Protein backbone atom coordinates (compact mmCIF):
# COMPACT_ATOMS: atom_id res chain seq x y z
CA UNK A 1 0.00 0.00 0.00
CA UNK A 2 1.25 3.46 -0.82
CA UNK A 3 2.75 5.18 2.24
CA UNK A 4 0.30 8.09 2.11
CA UNK A 5 -2.64 5.67 2.00
CA UNK A 6 -1.20 3.72 4.89
CA UNK A 7 -0.83 6.96 6.83
CA UNK A 8 -4.47 7.89 6.13
CA UNK A 9 -5.59 4.38 7.14
CA UNK A 10 -3.73 4.82 10.41
CA UNK A 11 -5.31 8.23 11.02
CA UNK A 12 -8.81 6.93 10.34
CA UNK A 13 -8.27 3.94 12.63
CA UNK A 14 -6.91 6.20 15.36
CA UNK A 15 -9.91 8.50 15.00
CA UNK A 16 -12.43 5.69 15.40
CA UNK A 17 -10.45 4.07 18.22
CA UNK A 18 -10.08 7.39 20.00
CA UNK A 19 -13.78 8.15 19.85
CA UNK A 20 -14.55 4.61 21.01
CA UNK A 21 -12.29 4.97 24.05
CA UNK A 22 -13.75 8.40 24.88
CA UNK A 23 -17.31 7.12 24.54
CA UNK A 24 -16.50 4.00 26.55
CA UNK A 25 -15.03 6.00 29.41
CA UNK A 26 -17.95 8.42 29.43
CA UNK A 27 -20.48 5.58 29.53
CA UNK A 28 -18.50 3.82 32.27
CA UNK A 29 -18.49 6.97 34.38
CA UNK A 30 -22.22 7.64 33.89
CA UNK A 31 -23.37 4.02 34.31
CA UNK A 32 -25.61 4.63 37.29
CA UNK A 33 -27.51 7.37 35.46
CA UNK A 34 -28.01 5.41 32.25
CA UNK A 35 -30.01 2.70 33.98
CA UNK A 36 -33.68 3.47 33.60
CA UNK A 37 -34.75 1.97 36.92
CA UNK A 38 -33.58 0.70 40.29
CA UNK A 39 -34.21 -2.90 41.30
CA UNK A 40 -36.11 -3.74 44.49
CA UNK A 41 -32.85 -4.94 46.09
CA UNK A 42 -31.26 -1.56 45.41
CA UNK A 43 -34.26 0.28 46.87
CA UNK A 44 -34.29 -1.89 50.01
CA UNK A 45 -30.54 -1.29 50.39
CA UNK A 46 -31.18 2.44 50.31
CA UNK A 47 -29.38 3.13 47.03
CA UNK A 48 -32.32 5.01 45.52
CA UNK A 49 -32.59 8.79 46.13
CA UNK A 50 -34.83 9.79 49.02
CA UNK A 51 -36.16 13.18 47.93
CA UNK A 52 -36.63 12.88 44.16
CA UNK A 53 -38.82 10.62 42.04
CA UNK A 54 -37.13 7.60 40.54
CA UNK A 55 -38.11 4.49 38.66
CA UNK A 56 -38.47 1.05 40.19
CA UNK A 57 -38.44 -2.06 38.01
CA UNK A 58 -39.37 -5.63 38.89
CA UNK A 59 -41.84 -8.44 38.42
CA UNK A 60 -45.32 -8.51 39.93
CA UNK A 61 -45.39 -11.02 42.76
CA UNK A 62 -48.10 -13.70 42.37
CA UNK A 63 -51.07 -13.04 44.61
CA UNK A 64 -49.85 -9.60 45.71
CA UNK A 65 -52.35 -7.53 43.70
CA UNK A 66 -54.86 -5.83 46.01
CA UNK A 67 -57.54 -3.49 44.66
CA UNK A 68 -59.81 -1.33 46.80
CA UNK A 69 -63.53 -1.42 45.89
CA UNK A 70 -65.03 1.65 44.29
CA UNK A 71 -61.79 3.37 43.39
CA UNK A 72 -58.83 2.97 41.07
CA UNK A 73 -56.43 2.44 43.98
CA UNK A 74 -54.30 -0.63 43.67
CA UNK A 75 -51.37 -2.15 45.55
CA UNK A 76 -48.97 -4.81 44.36
CA UNK A 77 -45.46 -6.05 45.14
CA UNK A 78 -42.53 -5.86 42.74
CA UNK A 79 -39.64 -8.28 43.13
CA UNK A 80 -36.30 -9.14 41.55
CA UNK A 81 -36.51 -12.61 43.22
CA UNK A 82 -34.23 -11.38 46.04
CA UNK A 83 -36.17 -8.49 47.64
CA UNK A 84 -39.62 -6.95 47.07
CA UNK A 85 -41.14 -3.51 47.38
CA UNK A 86 -44.85 -2.70 47.72
CA UNK A 87 -46.15 -0.26 45.12
CA UNK A 88 -49.29 1.85 45.53
CA UNK A 89 -50.90 3.35 42.43
CA UNK A 90 -54.14 5.12 41.59
CA UNK A 91 -55.11 4.99 37.95
CA UNK A 92 -55.52 2.76 34.95
CA UNK A 93 -52.87 0.09 34.54
CA UNK A 94 -51.39 -0.90 31.17
CA UNK A 95 -53.10 -3.76 29.32
CA UNK A 96 -50.17 -6.10 29.82
CA UNK A 97 -50.26 -5.78 33.63
CA UNK A 98 -50.63 -9.18 35.29
CA UNK A 99 -48.92 -11.45 37.82
CA UNK A 100 -45.38 -12.31 36.82
CA UNK A 101 -45.19 -9.43 34.32
CA UNK A 102 -42.26 -7.02 34.29
CA UNK A 103 -43.28 -3.55 35.47
CA UNK A 104 -41.45 -0.21 35.59
CA UNK A 105 -43.06 2.26 38.02
CA UNK A 106 -42.11 5.90 38.45
CA UNK A 107 -42.70 7.65 41.74
CA UNK A 108 -41.16 8.13 45.17
CA UNK A 109 -40.59 6.03 48.23
CA UNK A 110 -42.81 6.99 51.15
CA UNK A 111 -41.62 7.02 54.76
CA UNK A 112 -43.68 3.87 55.36
CA UNK A 113 -41.58 2.00 52.79
CA UNK A 114 -44.37 1.92 50.22
CA UNK A 115 -43.50 3.19 46.74
CA UNK A 116 -46.13 5.72 45.63
CA UNK A 117 -46.22 5.45 41.86
CA UNK A 118 -47.30 8.24 39.53
CA UNK A 119 -46.74 6.17 36.38
CA UNK A 120 -46.85 2.40 35.81
CA UNK A 121 -45.40 0.94 32.59
CA UNK A 122 -45.35 -2.66 31.45
CA UNK A 123 -42.07 -4.15 30.26
CA UNK A 124 -42.57 -7.22 28.13
CA UNK A 125 -39.93 -9.77 27.20
CA UNK A 126 -38.49 -10.52 23.79
CA UNK A 127 -40.55 -13.67 23.13
CA UNK A 128 -43.09 -13.79 20.33
CA UNK A 129 -45.20 -16.89 19.86
CA UNK A 130 -48.77 -17.94 19.07
CA UNK A 131 -51.09 -18.83 21.98
CA UNK A 132 -51.09 -22.56 21.10
CA UNK A 133 -47.36 -22.75 21.67
CA UNK A 134 -47.55 -21.09 25.11
CA UNK A 135 -50.39 -23.41 26.11
CA UNK A 136 -48.36 -26.42 25.02
CA UNK A 137 -45.32 -25.15 26.91
CA UNK A 138 -47.35 -24.60 30.06
CA UNK A 139 -48.90 -28.05 29.79
CA UNK A 140 -45.46 -29.59 29.37
CA UNK A 141 -44.17 -27.67 32.39
CA UNK A 142 -47.17 -28.82 34.49
CA UNK A 143 -46.59 -32.44 33.46
CA UNK A 144 -42.91 -32.13 34.24
CA UNK A 145 -43.68 -30.84 37.75
CA UNK A 146 -46.02 -33.74 38.39
Amino acid at each position, binding site marked *: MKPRRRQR*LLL*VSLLVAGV*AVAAGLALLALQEN*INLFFSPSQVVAGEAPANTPFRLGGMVVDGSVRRSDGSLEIQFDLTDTAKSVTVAYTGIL*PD*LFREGQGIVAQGSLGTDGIFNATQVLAKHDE*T*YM*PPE*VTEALEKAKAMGVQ
Partner: protein
Amino acid sequence: MSNNSANWLTRFHRLGSPPSFYHLAGALLPWVALLCIGLFAAGLYGGLVLAPADYQQGESYRIIYIHVPSAWMSMFVYAVMAASSAISLIWRMKLAEAVARASAPVGATYTFLALVTGSLWGKPMWGTWWVWDARLTSELVLLFLYLGYMALVAAIDDRRTASRAGAVLALVGVVNLPIIHFSVEWWNTLHQGPTLTKFDQPSIALNMLIPLLLMAGAFKFHYLYALLARVRIEILDSERRTAWVNALVSQRPS
Protein backbone atom coordinates in the same frame (compact mmCIF):
# COMPACT_ATOMS: atom_id res chain seq x y z
CA MET B 1 -3.86 -17.80 -13.41
CA SER B 2 -2.49 -14.29 -13.32
CA ASN B 3 -4.45 -13.50 -16.48
CA ASN B 4 -7.77 -14.42 -14.88
CA SER B 5 -7.17 -12.60 -11.60
CA ALA B 6 -5.95 -9.52 -13.47
CA ASN B 7 -9.19 -9.54 -15.47
CA TRP B 8 -11.27 -9.79 -12.28
CA LEU B 9 -9.38 -7.01 -10.58
CA THR B 10 -9.57 -4.67 -13.56
CA ARG B 11 -13.32 -5.19 -13.78
CA PHE B 12 -13.67 -4.37 -10.10
CA HIS B 13 -11.45 -1.31 -10.43
CA ARG B 14 -13.47 -0.13 -13.41
CA LEU B 15 -16.58 -0.16 -11.21
CA GLY B 16 -15.05 2.72 -9.31
CA SER B 17 -15.12 4.85 -12.40
CA PRO B 18 -18.23 7.02 -12.49
CA PRO B 19 -19.40 6.24 -16.05
CA SER B 20 -19.08 2.46 -15.56
CA PHE B 21 -21.00 2.61 -12.31
CA TYR B 22 -23.62 4.89 -13.86
CA HIS B 23 -24.40 2.43 -16.62
CA LEU B 24 -24.20 -0.68 -14.47
CA ALA B 25 -26.51 0.84 -11.86
CA GLY B 26 -28.95 1.85 -14.58
CA ALA B 27 -29.09 -1.72 -15.86
CA LEU B 28 -29.62 -3.15 -12.36
CA LEU B 29 -32.36 -0.75 -11.22
CA PRO B 30 -35.42 -2.47 -12.73
CA TRP B 31 -34.39 -5.88 -11.33
CA VAL B 32 -33.76 -4.46 -7.89
CA ALA B 33 -37.18 -2.78 -8.01
CA LEU B 34 -38.84 -6.04 -8.98
CA LEU B 35 -37.18 -7.95 -6.14
CA CYS B 36 -38.02 -5.20 -3.68
CA ILE B 37 -41.70 -5.14 -4.60
CA GLY B 38 -41.90 -8.93 -4.58
CA LEU B 39 -40.32 -9.20 -1.14
CA PHE B 40 -42.56 -6.45 0.27
CA ALA B 41 -45.64 -8.23 -1.07
CA ALA B 42 -44.55 -11.60 0.34
CA GLY B 43 -43.42 -10.15 3.66
CA LEU B 44 -46.53 -8.04 4.24
CA TYR B 45 -48.87 -10.86 3.25
CA GLY B 46 -46.98 -13.26 5.50
CA GLY B 47 -46.85 -10.84 8.39
CA LEU B 48 -50.30 -9.30 8.25
CA VAL B 49 -52.34 -12.31 7.08
CA LEU B 50 -50.51 -15.60 7.55
CA ALA B 51 -48.63 -15.13 10.82
CA PRO B 52 -50.58 -16.00 13.98
CA ALA B 53 -51.44 -13.52 16.74
CA ASP B 54 -49.02 -13.24 19.65
CA TYR B 55 -49.92 -14.94 22.95
CA GLN B 56 -49.21 -11.74 24.87
CA GLN B 57 -49.66 -8.77 22.54
CA GLY B 58 -52.42 -10.10 20.30
CA GLU B 59 -52.64 -8.50 16.89
CA SER B 60 -50.80 -5.30 17.87
CA TYR B 61 -47.41 -7.00 17.60
CA ARG B 62 -47.70 -6.97 13.78
CA ILE B 63 -46.13 -3.52 13.66
CA ILE B 64 -42.93 -5.51 14.26
CA TYR B 65 -42.88 -6.14 10.50
CA ILE B 66 -42.17 -2.46 9.87
CA HIS B 67 -40.49 -1.42 13.11
CA VAL B 68 -37.75 -4.06 13.35
CA PRO B 69 -36.60 -4.05 9.69
CA SER B 70 -36.46 -0.24 9.64
CA ALA B 71 -34.47 -0.25 12.90
CA TRP B 72 -32.06 -2.83 11.47
CA MET B 73 -31.72 -0.76 8.29
CA SER B 74 -31.13 2.47 10.23
CA MET B 75 -27.99 0.87 11.64
CA PHE B 76 -26.98 -1.00 8.48
CA VAL B 77 -27.14 2.13 6.34
CA TYR B 78 -25.07 4.06 8.87
CA ALA B 79 -22.49 1.27 8.78
CA VAL B 80 -22.38 1.52 4.98
CA MET B 81 -22.06 5.30 5.29
CA ALA B 82 -19.20 4.95 7.76
CA ALA B 83 -17.42 2.31 5.66
CA SER B 84 -17.67 4.33 2.45
CA SER B 85 -16.56 7.41 4.39
CA ALA B 86 -13.45 5.57 5.54
CA ILE B 87 -12.77 4.37 2.00
CA SER B 88 -13.26 7.87 0.61
CA LEU B 89 -10.85 9.30 3.17
CA ILE B 90 -8.15 6.66 2.71
CA TRP B 91 -8.35 6.03 -1.04
CA ARG B 92 -9.90 9.34 -2.10
CA MET B 93 -12.52 7.52 -4.17
CA LYS B 94 -15.16 9.82 -5.64
CA LEU B 95 -17.65 6.96 -5.81
CA ALA B 96 -17.26 6.19 -2.11
CA GLU B 97 -18.03 9.84 -1.35
CA ALA B 98 -21.13 9.62 -3.50
CA VAL B 99 -22.31 6.44 -1.72
CA ALA B 100 -21.95 8.11 1.68
CA ARG B 101 -23.77 11.28 0.59
CA ALA B 102 -26.53 9.30 -1.11
CA SER B 103 -27.09 6.99 1.86
CA ALA B 104 -27.66 9.64 4.51
CA PRO B 105 -31.24 10.74 3.72
CA VAL B 106 -32.33 7.13 3.20
CA GLY B 107 -30.85 6.06 6.53
CA ALA B 108 -32.39 9.06 8.26
CA THR B 109 -35.79 8.05 6.93
CA TYR B 110 -35.41 4.50 8.23
CA THR B 111 -34.37 5.85 11.64
CA PHE B 112 -37.37 8.18 11.74
CA LEU B 113 -39.66 5.31 10.71
CA ALA B 114 -38.23 3.08 13.44
CA LEU B 115 -38.74 5.77 16.07
CA VAL B 116 -42.31 6.57 14.99
CA THR B 117 -43.45 2.94 14.67
CA GLY B 118 -41.76 2.19 17.97
CA SER B 119 -43.64 5.03 19.62
CA LEU B 120 -46.96 3.84 18.15
CA TRP B 121 -46.18 0.35 19.45
CA GLY B 122 -45.05 1.55 22.85
CA LYS B 123 -48.17 3.48 23.77
CA PRO B 124 -50.56 0.48 23.87
CA MET B 125 -47.97 -2.09 25.02
CA TRP B 126 -45.78 -0.22 27.50
CA GLY B 127 -48.18 2.60 28.35
CA THR B 128 -46.08 5.50 27.03
CA TRP B 129 -45.16 7.12 23.71
CA TRP B 130 -41.57 7.70 24.78
CA VAL B 131 -39.12 7.04 27.57
CA TRP B 132 -35.51 8.17 27.84
CA ASP B 133 -34.03 4.72 28.21
CA ALA B 134 -30.70 3.78 26.62
CA ARG B 135 -32.14 2.08 23.53
CA LEU B 136 -34.57 4.82 22.52
CA THR B 137 -32.17 7.64 23.35
CA SER B 138 -29.29 6.14 21.36
CA GLU B 139 -31.55 5.57 18.34
CA LEU B 140 -32.64 9.22 18.56
CA VAL B 141 -28.96 10.21 18.67
CA LEU B 142 -28.52 8.19 15.47
CA LEU B 143 -31.21 10.31 13.82
CA PHE B 144 -29.39 13.47 14.93
CA LEU B 145 -26.14 12.09 13.51
CA TYR B 146 -27.78 11.52 10.14
CA LEU B 147 -29.35 14.99 10.13
CA GLY B 148 -26.08 16.54 11.29
CA TYR B 149 -24.22 14.80 8.49
CA MET B 150 -26.71 16.05 5.91
CA ALA B 151 -26.55 19.60 7.28
CA LEU B 152 -22.75 19.61 7.36
CA VAL B 153 -22.37 18.35 3.79
CA ALA B 154 -24.98 20.82 2.56
CA ALA B 155 -23.29 23.74 4.31
CA ILE B 156 -19.92 23.43 2.53
CA ASP B 157 -19.76 24.63 -1.06
CA ASP B 158 -16.87 22.59 -2.37
CA ARG B 159 -18.16 19.06 -2.95
CA ARG B 160 -14.98 17.19 -2.03
CA THR B 161 -14.33 19.24 1.10
CA ALA B 162 -17.93 18.75 2.12
CA SER B 163 -17.65 15.00 1.64
CA ARG B 164 -14.44 14.88 3.64
CA ALA B 165 -15.96 16.81 6.55
CA GLY B 166 -19.02 14.58 6.46
CA ALA B 167 -16.81 11.50 6.38
CA VAL B 168 -15.11 12.53 9.61
CA LEU B 169 -18.48 13.10 11.26
CA ALA B 170 -19.76 9.74 10.04
CA LEU B 171 -16.71 7.97 11.48
CA VAL B 172 -17.01 9.77 14.81
CA GLY B 173 -20.64 8.70 15.10
CA VAL B 174 -20.05 5.05 14.26
CA VAL B 175 -19.36 4.34 17.95
CA ASN B 176 -23.13 4.76 18.45
CA LEU B 177 -23.88 1.52 16.59
CA PRO B 178 -22.62 -0.95 19.22
CA ILE B 179 -24.14 1.30 21.88
CA ILE B 180 -27.58 1.02 20.27
CA HIS B 181 -27.25 -2.73 19.84
CA PHE B 182 -25.94 -3.59 23.31
CA SER B 183 -27.88 -0.91 25.22
CA VAL B 184 -30.57 -3.40 26.24
CA GLU B 185 -27.94 -5.77 27.63
CA TRP B 186 -25.56 -3.33 29.29
CA TRP B 187 -28.18 -1.28 31.16
CA ASN B 188 -31.69 -1.54 32.59
CA THR B 189 -34.05 -0.39 29.86
CA LEU B 190 -37.77 -0.40 29.18
CA HIS B 191 -37.10 -1.80 25.70
CA GLN B 192 -36.78 -5.56 25.83
CA GLY B 193 -33.66 -7.50 24.92
CA PRO B 194 -32.79 -8.96 21.52
CA THR B 195 -35.11 -11.53 20.00
CA LEU B 196 -32.95 -12.37 17.04
CA THR B 197 -29.51 -10.80 16.89
CA LYS B 198 -27.90 -12.73 19.71
CA PHE B 199 -25.73 -15.82 20.17
CA ASP B 200 -28.72 -17.93 21.04
CA GLN B 201 -31.82 -19.47 19.48
CA PRO B 202 -34.29 -16.86 18.25
CA SER B 203 -37.14 -16.28 20.73
CA ILE B 204 -39.76 -15.97 18.04
CA ALA B 205 -41.96 -18.63 16.44
CA LEU B 206 -40.85 -19.73 12.97
CA ASN B 207 -44.07 -18.72 11.23
CA MET B 208 -43.67 -15.24 12.72
CA LEU B 209 -39.95 -15.13 11.91
CA ILE B 210 -40.13 -15.88 8.20
CA PRO B 211 -42.20 -12.80 7.21
CA LEU B 212 -39.85 -10.73 9.37
CA LEU B 213 -36.84 -11.96 7.39
CA LEU B 214 -38.70 -11.35 4.12
CA MET B 215 -39.40 -7.77 5.21
CA ALA B 216 -35.74 -7.33 6.14
CA GLY B 217 -34.85 -8.44 2.61
CA ALA B 218 -37.45 -6.10 1.14
CA PHE B 219 -36.02 -3.14 3.03
CA LYS B 220 -32.49 -4.09 1.91
CA PHE B 221 -33.52 -4.07 -1.73
CA HIS B 222 -35.35 -0.81 -1.20
CA TYR B 223 -32.12 0.68 0.14
CA LEU B 224 -30.19 -0.75 -2.81
CA TYR B 225 -32.64 0.79 -5.24
CA ALA B 226 -32.57 4.18 -3.53
CA LEU B 227 -28.77 4.03 -3.29
CA LEU B 228 -28.19 3.15 -6.95
CA ALA B 229 -30.65 5.81 -8.13
CA ARG B 230 -29.24 8.52 -5.88
CA VAL B 231 -25.58 7.71 -6.65
CA ARG B 232 -26.39 8.01 -10.37
CA ILE B 233 -27.71 11.49 -9.72
CA GLU B 234 -24.66 12.39 -7.61
CA ILE B 235 -22.43 11.18 -10.43
CA LEU B 236 -24.26 13.21 -13.05
CA ASP B 237 -24.01 16.26 -10.83
CA SER B 238 -20.35 15.97 -9.91
CA GLU B 239 -19.27 14.94 -13.40
CA ARG B 240 -21.40 17.48 -15.26
CA ARG B 241 -18.40 19.06 -16.99
CA THR B 242 -17.15 15.78 -18.48
CA ALA B 243 -17.58 14.66 -22.07
CA TRP B 244 -19.53 11.49 -21.32
CA VAL B 245 -22.17 13.33 -19.29
CA ASN B 246 -22.57 15.98 -21.96
CA ALA B 247 -22.94 13.22 -24.55
CA LEU B 248 -25.68 11.63 -22.42
CA VAL B 249 -27.47 14.94 -22.03
CA SER B 250 -27.30 15.76 -25.74
CA GLN B 251 -28.77 12.32 -26.55
CA ARG B 252 -31.93 13.03 -24.55
CA PRO B 253 -34.97 14.12 -26.57
CA SER B 254 -35.73 17.75 -25.64
